[in-house]
């Protein structure tokens, strides 16, 4: 990487010019080509060239000039080195740790959903969003936390903007956790409905994890390599045996489940995993899912490079007008909400103020880890976009549209989708299901199955051919389900803590985290919160994702807006307002997007977009005693109205949280401008007294 840091030598300058030219050519092919199929390799080349240039010329500029990272200033890892939490860590090792912590289901699912508008709008936002918003946010929060002993985002907001702003942010984070867990669990449910093969393989991860946990606790403690290998072998065996299960009707019946059943199982599972000791179930599953996640992402990258498939999805579809069947809403603001994590993710600000800042050796490495980590995440999103765009567009829409729109048979679906201009035959839809070993692939919303089909196409092209497509498809489903469920386990615990903390303000005894009563009540509350939204999403005849994903995206982008606002405030308090535009620009854009999206979700007169107008439409029909499709009974009608109001309230709260944070941010900035001295609350200036903990 040395050429990245030294651009003065003539040969390195030439190299950068070559990178820029290559990137420009590849980008022009991707963006300007019309009519002919574009090869995915061009997308990969364009993305990599843009990332390299962005890192060298913008990321390093923000780090060195705007933030003013100081290589001579001791980091928390150096000052508090205890060999445990605070450990100066090699930057490549830490990069791996940070990437594994931020990578998850978001960048894989969001781009798949965004592909309904064609591959180009989503790709542009994945690239621009990561370079100017996401990576800047991740790096700046990492920088702020490193200068504050690795404090969390909530603590930083409290310290820099006051306790009220801190509490508002805390409530925002809690709501985000609820909606994130619900929507991610919904993705798993949607992928497993009526799929005995996938359900069997995912269920098998529980006994496998228990076995690994017992082995690791009692037989050979601490041998992570051994148990992970053992777990992977057993997992592959379960995957292969799953085919037999799905082909044996007596066995398949046990694993051929409805959405409602799967949702209840996952909610119950989340509760049990949150209550059990971590070594038994949570930790071993985490090992499996982390290694499988990193391994599969690398395998997919290799696959795309070797196979170089053509993109079948058009660059832009007619659904940019907002009439799309996968999710509702037009390009602005909803495309920017939908992509979520691949471009900018508020969730990362929680991770960048978590364990990573406690392990940075030197402030000079913040750009590589924070900015570079997000660029890699963005690349994962590009791969997901490729995965969704290489399958037949007709098949894509058959998989991602709710049954309320395209019906339940391949014939109906083919007719409806062909009428949208994506000509597809019932045979083509049925053939994909047959290839991947499923009864049906229709209305498998949520993105994961679509990506699994794309991955199965790519991986089977160079490993195993058509006969192994079923294995690869279910491997991809297993890989996504595994790390989503690990997030659900860990998230339920985090949510439980936050609830205990919040309720504990009123009932102090509830704060005690070691109490079993509190543990059970807290876990039950936590599961009930996200479980409610999960269940509502599962029974939603429009597919659930159609309703809830925009809410999830809004929540996530809202947190990013909050994080970038506090970054801006701190830049002013550091007297670095000259450079504050690096966070003001993305913060403004995200505030505009989330507030517009939030208000539209609440107040839009279009019942497809606005929750209240949807509720009124169904409420009026209910008053007149009519049934509106897809409801089949008056009780369902009442439930739809009730859920609409809950969703509307949630969207309204999101908007209020953002607006309140921005107001507090502006007040803090005015105060900072009025003070000639820097007022940022940093810790650990060279030579200053070092307080705090030391083991």
């Amino acid at each position, binding site marked *: 990487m040395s050429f990245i840091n030294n651009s003065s030598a003539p040969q390195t300058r030439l190299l950068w010019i070559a990178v820029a030219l290559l990137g420009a050519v590849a980008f022009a092919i991707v963006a300007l080509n019309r009519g002919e199929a574009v090869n995915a390799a061009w997308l990969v080349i364009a993305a990599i060239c843009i990332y390299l240039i962005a890192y060298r010329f913008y990321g390093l500029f923000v780090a060195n000039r705007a933030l003013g990272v100081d290589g001579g200033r001791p980091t928390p890892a150096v000052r508090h*080195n*205890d*060999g*445990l*939490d605070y*450990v100066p*860590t*090699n930057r*490549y*090792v*830490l990069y*791996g*740790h940070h990437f*594994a*912590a*931020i990578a*998850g*289901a978001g960048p894989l699912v969001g781009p798949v959903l965004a592909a309904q508008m064609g591959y180009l709008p989503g790709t542009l936002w994945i690239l621009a969003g990561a370079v100017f918003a996401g990576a800047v946010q991740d790096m700046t929060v990492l920088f702020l936390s490193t200068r504050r002993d*690795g*404090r*969390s985002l909530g*603590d930083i907001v409290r310290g820099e903007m006051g306790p009220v702003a801190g509490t508002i942010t805390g409530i925002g984070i809690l709501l985000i956790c609820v909606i*994130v867990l619900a929507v991610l669990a919904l993705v798993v449910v949607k992928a497993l409905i009526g799929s005995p093969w996938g359900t069997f393989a995912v269920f098998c991860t529980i006994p496998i994890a228990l076995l690994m946990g017992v082995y690791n606790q009692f037989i050979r*403690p*601490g041998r*992570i390599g051994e148990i992970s290998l053992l777990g992977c072998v057993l997992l592959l065996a379960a995957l292969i045996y799953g085919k037999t299960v799905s082909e044996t009707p007596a066995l398949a019946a046990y694993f051929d489940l409805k959405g409602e059943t799967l949702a209840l199982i996952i909610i119950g599972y989340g509760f049990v995993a949150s209550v059990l000791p*971590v*070594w038994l179930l*949570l*930790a071993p599953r*985490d*090992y499996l*899912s*982390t*290694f499988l*996640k*990193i391994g599969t992402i690398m395998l997919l990258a290799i696959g795309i490079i070797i196979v170089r498939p053509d993109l079948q999805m058009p660059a832009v579809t007619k659904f940019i007008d907002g009439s799309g069947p996968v999710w509702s809403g037009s390009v602005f603001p909803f495309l920017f909400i939908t992509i*979520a*994590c691949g471009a900018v*993710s508020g*969730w*990362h600000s*929680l*991770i960048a*103020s*978590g*364990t990573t800042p406690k*392990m940075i050796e030197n402030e000079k490495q913040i750009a590589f880890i924070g900015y570079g980590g997000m660029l890699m995440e963005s690349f994962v999103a590009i791969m997901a976009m490729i995965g969704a765009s290489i399958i037949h567009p007709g098949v894509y829409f058959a998989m991602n549209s709710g049954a309320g729109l395209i019906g339940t048979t391949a014939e109906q679906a083919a007719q409806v989708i062909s009428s949208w201009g994506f000509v597809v035959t019932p045979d083509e839809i049925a053939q994909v299901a047959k290839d991947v070993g499923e009864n049906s692939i229709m209305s498998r919303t949520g993105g994961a199955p679509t990506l699994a089909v794309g991955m199965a196409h790519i991986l089977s092209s160079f490993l195993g051919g058509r006969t192994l497509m079923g294995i690869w498809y279910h491997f991809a489903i297993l890989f996504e389900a595994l*790390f989503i469920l*690990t*997030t659900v386990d*860990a*998230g339920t*615990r*985090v949510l439980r*803590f936050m609830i*205990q903390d919040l309720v504990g303000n009123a009932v102090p005894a509830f704060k005690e*985290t070691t109490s079993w009563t509190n543990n059970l009540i807290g876990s039950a509350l936590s599961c009930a919160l996200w479980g409610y939204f999960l269940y509502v999403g599962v029974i939603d005849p429009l597919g659930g994702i159609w309703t809830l994903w925009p809410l999830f995206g809004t929540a*996530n982008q809202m947190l990013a807006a909050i994080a970038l606002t506090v970054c801006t405030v701190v830049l002013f308090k550091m007297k670095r307002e000259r450079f504050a535009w690096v966070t003001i620009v993305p913060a403004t854009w995200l505030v505009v997007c989330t507030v517009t999206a939030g208000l539209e979700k609440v107040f839009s007169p279009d019942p497809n977009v606005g929750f209240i107008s949807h509720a009124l439409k169904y409420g009026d029909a209910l008053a007149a005693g009519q049934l509106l499709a897809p409801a089949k009974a008056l009780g369902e009608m009442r439930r739809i109205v009730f859920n609409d109001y809950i969703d509307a309230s949630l969207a309204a709260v999101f908007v209020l949280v953002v607006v309140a944070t921005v107001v507090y941010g502006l007040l803090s900035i005015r105060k900072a401008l009025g003070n000639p001295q820097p007022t940022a609350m940093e810790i650990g200036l060279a030579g200053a007294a070092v307080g705090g903990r030391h*083991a």
Partner: protein
Amino acid sequence: MPDLQELFDQSASAMRAAGYWGTRTARLMIGVPDYEAYVAHRRANHPDQPIMTYVEFFRERQQARYAIGKGRFRGCC
């Protein structure tokens, strides 16, 4: 004609280095930092205090990773 033995030695040591760094990265990904660094730190700074064995160290880290506490968010988006 390159010296095959030398080439072999070089690639073997490169593989060893890759394995060493790969293992450390993989361990930190699941929340277990370097045990040797921990021991060296305790020996250098707290020579009078006990040092956890690897198994104790591993269990302590495993608990800490999932401890209900602030700033332990992971893997979502």
